[in-house]
């Protein structure tokens, strides 16, 4: 009788532990896609360096004007996932504001985009990758999938 109770207790503890443990790496990627891709394109980790991601994930309650807070374990899990896939810390993928669009790399890559393009109502903001990067939702930002909308010609 005693061993039955012990087994039940262990099973109970195991199930609690399973729910309480941080999601494994594969799930962290899925959590990133779901949580970080719910209001905007899930910006790929390689666009910012690890310290940048760490700072951003520590300040989710003031995420560019919104409160994007998640529970502690999901935050830790996604943060680790991002940092392990981040850009090298060489300044190119760094921005005091934490805005990817203000990193030197981004500015250089988009130097041919005019002010008018950014202002176009179909674009609205540099956060809106999908306006020109038609494969953004699939994580594809290659130039062959870029189509810049031009409201003037109704394209």
């Amino acid at each position, binding site marked *: 009788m005693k061993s039955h109770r012990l087994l039940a207790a262990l099973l109970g503890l195991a199930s609690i532990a399973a729910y309480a443990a941080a999601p494994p790496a594969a799930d962290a990627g899925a959590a990133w896609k779901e949580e970080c891709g719910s209001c*905007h394109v899930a910006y790929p980790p390689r666009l910012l360096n690890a310290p940048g991601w760490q700072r951003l994930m520590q300040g989710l309650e003031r995420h560019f004007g*919104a409160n994007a807070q998640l529970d502690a374990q999901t935050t830790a899990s996604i943060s680790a996932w991002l940092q392990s896939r981040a850009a090298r810390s060489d300044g190119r993928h760094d921005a005091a504001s934490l805005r990817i669009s203000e990193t030197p790399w981004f500015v250089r890559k988009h130097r041919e985009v005019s002010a008018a393009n950014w202002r176009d109502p179909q674009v609205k903001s540099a956060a*809106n990758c999908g*306006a020109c990067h038609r494969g953004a939702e699939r994580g594809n930002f290659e130039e062959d999938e870029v189509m810049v909308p031009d409201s003037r010609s109704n394209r």
Partner: protein
Amino acid sequence: MKTFGAILLAVCSLPAVAQTPSEISAAYAEQAATSQPGFSASADHGRAFFLKKWNVTEKMPSCTACHTERPSAAGVHAVTSKPIKPLSPAANPQRFSSPAKVEKWFRRNCNDVLGRECTPGEKADFVQYLASSGGAQ
């Protein structure tokens, strides 16, 4: 032994199972009734709440700023332009099936649009509206 088994069962069922919009609305209505005896969710109130121009912030003056005035229509994020799937469960069966997700989005969007948390009554009315035929339009 019986108590132990009951506790074990309760512990194993901790994660919220999928629910229906009506069940979710009913849960909020129950909460609301603790401070407003006799409260029952109203789809009409929910619709008015959804359409209201709160004007607390410039970018998200109302729920409709992102979700449009028709819950069955796809919306667009007012700041990032990201496409938003329809709110109405009739158009998007995944809506209002996970209490945890519903709470997360209420917590975020009520702060964004109303500048405060929504009351349980407001949540009950809103979910009731979307679960009703009015919300299917």
